[in-house]
């Protein structure tokens, strides 16, 4: 069974997205990036992000991720904050630690693109 199937597929993403988004909005290190955006549109992007890191279907290229985040001048600290909130969300939802680590690994694999390095 793939990671995505193991943790529950699209239903897992649905269960996680609001929890994750609330954590992000409560985290002073990164919440300001979301100040002026449309919340519904942003929730949809969070869903796409979670689908990708859960090992689900995703067609974003490295270039898409780079272009999408370039203007924000993100740092290592911002990236780590997102991973922390992601891990905490998954723990709350009862996902196995080994799966959490695999998911963090997938997120880590796009770090250079997201940080435009």
């Amino acid at each position, binding site marked *: 069974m793939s990671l995505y199937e193991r943790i529950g597929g699209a239903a897992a993403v649905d269960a996680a997205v609001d929890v994750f988004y609330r954590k992000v909005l409560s985290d002073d290190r990164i919440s300001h990036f979301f100040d002026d955006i449309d919340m*519904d549109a942003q929730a949809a992007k969070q869903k*796409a992000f979670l689908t990708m890191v859960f090992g689900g279907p995703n*067609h974003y290229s490295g270039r898409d991720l780079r272009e999408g985040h370039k203007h924000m001048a993100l740092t290592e600290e911002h990236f780590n904050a997102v991973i922390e909130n992601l891990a905490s969300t998954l723990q709350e939802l009862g996902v196995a630690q080994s799966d959490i680590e695999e998911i963090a690994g997938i997120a880590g694999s796009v770090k250079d693109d997201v940080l435009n390095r």
Partner: protein
Amino acid sequence: MIDIKLDDNILPLQDGESVLEGLLRHGIEVSHGCRAGACQACLLQALAGELPRGAQAGLKSTQKSLGLFLSCQCKPTGPLEICFSDQGAKKVSARVIDKALIGNNILRVRLEKVLDFRAGQYLNIWNGEAGNTLIRSYSIASVPQLEDFIELHIKIIANGRFSRWAADAMESGDQLMIQGPLGDCFYTPGDPQQPLLFMGIGTGLAPLYGILRDALQQGHEGDISLVLGARAEEGFYLREALARLQRDYSQLKVHFVCQSPSAFAGDVDSTDIYSFVKQQFPNTKGMKVYLCGADSFVRKMKKQVFMSGAAMNDIHADAFFPCG
């Protein structure tokens, strides 16, 4: 081969192709992003035909009811007639049948019911039938199953060109061009026990008044709270109608909130709407929330109720923008 009809064009899909893939192949520009059914950038609207399973996954109940679908996930088994969302709204002429001042600079306008709508949707309206006219958007306050007219609440703004025209020049009998219905802020029967929370400022009450009466006439049983904010007491309107509704429906509770109520305002709380809601509804988990009024209010309150537990898919909003 499955046929997709878009405007006047028939666009056949190849076997196994999604609607998004087919449209792009035919050279039609369709926004898209993840192509995995998550980001919702590729939303289109089905006007006729059957949508396959999965094509509406993750959408709000209101969006599903309007036939919106994820074109990247849609591999139809039969023909579909589609359009870009909100492009399907018809333009039609409507006669003004009534005009009355119902509050402090609030004009109630009733038009003949020339189109179908769901309570809470809005219209584009022109101040005449001919070409070089002003266009504005107003939310509908009436309920099609209850009333034979389309009711709008227009705030008369000092230098508002449209509202000044409506107040000073528009008359019963005038024909206006309207386009609609538009918008996705309306009641959908899902769980009749679900607590509903309606919040609005100013003429944000217009669509809320329609949606909540629609919920009631569809038999909604759960608690319904309506919280209305205004700068001062004279900003409130429809108070008698709301009092009557409260008397007739025990599940409805109406709250008026303003910073400076008069000494005689027994039922008006003296505070700002955000603090009031935080205190009265500290945990909004499981509630369906409707927000209407100025965009700044809608944005701030949307964030507040989401953070206190309401699901993103359970928050419906109709934001008003000034047009001058």
